[in-house]
């Protein structure tokens, strides 16, 4: 393994740019009345579709081909049909939502259960907390994760601390907040953000991000059933792009459990959401080009995260006053999540083992390696 391997010398053909740069330079304004819009694939990494197995158990029962937004609708449908207290609310959810996640639910369950709120995020989350305090199931939608910040006070100071501060006399455990998340190729500053690290510092809430339709439904149902306030981020670029067989009936994927998608011995790659599909490709490349064996892990739950799965490669020493999770994962999240205005937001946590230290001297190298690859 040459230790001087530099990302700049990495073979170009592995870049999947659509259209190729040459096309961008040579396309002249056309005399036609419409401006040319060549087909542009924002996410050149084919989403990995899992075999129909959950926790190494094959899924039984009827399945249906669903994309990610349909699997969300399916989870919400299951919830409303089984839990008469459950309500869904947010901006524009009544007509089906701007991403089609709530289509048909209002007609099926009534306008008192699926309804629009005024355009006010702090109100939406505060209202959801109140619904949950009475014991009813509240499923709030924030239209884009980018617009969750007006509700930051309600989430961090209220929702997260409700049970603790009242000595468990009151809680808002039946609250779930859903929000479209992550880059979408053309989202600019306020339709691309991945704010999970802000929430990773906040004890009392759970933060969950799925990588696929099958994962999304099982994890969302777990969030809704969980007795703690949960934030569920849905990778919006996969709403239509990712399609797989999803069970029609409810099923659960446990929270706070990472999933090893690929065993490896040299280096551990960890990601969540859309980025899982990127690091799977990276693992293949690393194997082919460098002979490096990568372990690929989908973290799935950002808080409280699965320390055992991720830290088995390299034990970490905790010694600080801040909450455990903020102390270890979040600084990494905060420091290695570069925000690229092209719309690529890449977060990858790397733990190295001794045999790879010479080649991949630190995680920044791999970060550069992968970012360069997908830009």
């Amino acid at each position, binding site marked *: 393994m040459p230790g001087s391997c530099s990302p700049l010398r990495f073979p170009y053909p592995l870049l999947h740019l659509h259209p190729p740069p040459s096309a961008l330079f040579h396309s002249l304004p056309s005399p036609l009345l419409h401006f040319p819009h060549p087909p542009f694939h924002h996410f050149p990494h084919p989403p990995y579709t899992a075999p129909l197995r959950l926790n190494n158990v094959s899924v039984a029962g009827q399945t249906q081909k669903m994309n990610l937004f349909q699997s969300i609708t399916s989870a919400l449908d299951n919830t409303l049909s089984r839990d008469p207290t459950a309500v869904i609310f947010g901006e524009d959810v009544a007509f089906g939502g701007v991403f089609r996640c709530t289509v048909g639910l209002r007609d099926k369950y009534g306008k008192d259960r699926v309804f629009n709120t005024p355009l006010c995020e702090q109100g939406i989350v505060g209202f959801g907390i109140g*619904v949950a305090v009475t014991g009813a199931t509240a499923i709030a939608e924030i239209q884009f994760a980018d617009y969750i910040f007006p509700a930051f*006070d309600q989430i961090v100071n209220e929702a997260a601390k409700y*049970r603790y501060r*009242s*000595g468990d006399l*009151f809680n808002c455990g039946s609250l779930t907040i859903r929000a479209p998340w992550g880059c979408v190729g053309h989202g600019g500053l306020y339709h691309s953000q991945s704010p999970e690290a802000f929430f990773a510092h906040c004890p009392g809430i759970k933060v969950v991000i799925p990588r696929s339709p099958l994962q999304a439904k099982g994890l969302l149902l777990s969030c809704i059933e969980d*007795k703690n306030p949960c934030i569920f981020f849905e990778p919006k670029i996969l709403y239509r792009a990712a399609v797989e067989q999803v069970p029609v009936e409810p099923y659960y994927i446990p929270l706070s459990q990472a999933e090893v998608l690929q065993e490896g011995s040299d280096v551990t790659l960890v990601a969540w959401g859309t980025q899982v599909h990127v690091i799977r490709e990276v693992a293949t490349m690393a194997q082919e080009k460098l002979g490096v064996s990568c372990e690929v892990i989908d973290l799935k739950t950002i808080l409280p995260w699965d320390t055992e799965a991720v830290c088995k490669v390299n034990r970490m020493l905790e010694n600080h006053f801040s909450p455990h*999770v903020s102390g270890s994962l979040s600084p990494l999240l905060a420091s290695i999540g570069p925000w690229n205005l092209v719309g690529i937001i890449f977060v990858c946590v790397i733990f190295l083992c001794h045999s790879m230290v010479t080649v991949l001297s630190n995680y920044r190298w791999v970060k550069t390696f992968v970012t360069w690859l997908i830009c």
Partner: protein
Amino acid sequence: MSESDALPPHLVLSSPQRVLRQQQEFTSLEEKPQFPGASADFVDKLDFIQPNVISGIPIYRVMDRQGQIINPDEDPQLAQEQVLSLQTHDPLPQTIAGSVPSTRGKGRPPWCFPHVEPAPPWPEMTGYRGRQPEPSLQFTRLPQPPWCPLIPIRSPCYSRAEPHNRAQRQSPAHLAGRGEGGSGPISPAPCTNPSPATLPAAVGAAYAFKRDNASRAVICYFGEGAASEGDAHAGFNFAATLECPILFFCRNNGYAISTPTSEQYRGDGIAARGPGYGIMSIRVDGNDVLAVYNATREARRRAIAENQPFLIEAMTYRIGHHSTSDDSSAYRSVDEVNYWDKQDHPISRLRHHMVGRGWWDEEQEKSWRKKSRKRVMEAFEQAERKLKPSPQHLFSDVYCEMPSHLQKQQEALARHLRLYGEHYPLEHFEK
């Protein structure tokens, strides 16, 4: 069929003929405004709407400062025992407030709100009529003493453990309780510091009650300063559009810490905002317990019957300092405070009223004062003698279950205390 119909729609130009043809199709109906955003007539004269702040929304009162009923039609005709319960509840917080600042510095409560706030009296909000009380839910930032027995009042002040609340984690005066022993009819949702963050939550709870057909209303208290927060705007607007049975109870006491209302708002107080949200609103004399009672009773009845929010602005004056951390003489005159304390106080006004009815006299007053002071001091002493909750409760209730990383932290503290326990005040805490 013109030639332009063959073009894609975005290239069709509005030709003069086309515009003309549309104008000819106008009917008289279209002379009325058709905008979806408001229901109003046109006006052909430029005229800005002027706020009326000189003569604002009038202040409803039932009795004058001598406790005399002004308009007999408005007398709620409360039974003697009910009025008595108001009177005997009300001095309690005052006694507590009087005791707390004087006991500071002796290891007593480190912090408190040392003042009485107007609140709808106990019989009303519980629907209490000598029968089984029906439950209500209140969201408040401050304790509502008439509704809270002394146990939950005293314990948060001392951060002591209680059977119904095994870990008092908040700063003093932040109550959470379910009435006596944690199971009573009254549920003050836990107080919170960021004001008025409870306001939209109260609306959500009211919505859930409505879906439950529970015949319950929610009441939410906040001050005129908190009403400037975005959460207040959110709560008012959601309550109206989602048709929730909720009472917004604003205590307008003239100050938010040191900030006078002239620096808080320029409209006609808080009550004038209600109609802008489509909320039925009223302004009452907050030092007149019967006026507060009447307004709250009627608002509650209608909120439940009609599923709509009500806003009550109780005008009052903050006699005490903002808190024990505040010296209010730095921003207002002692004379101003004395006027309200001596001339227009809710407790003395109710006392006048009861004396006028022959329900109360000097003798009863003396014995009540003695008794209530004794009760409060006993409660304080009991609380002081109690141990604080076990340190392990620092880690419970963060989540419903305890995640592994918190378990590890808890174990780490236990190990640490085994080694270095002598450096910590462990004797004051339960094992």
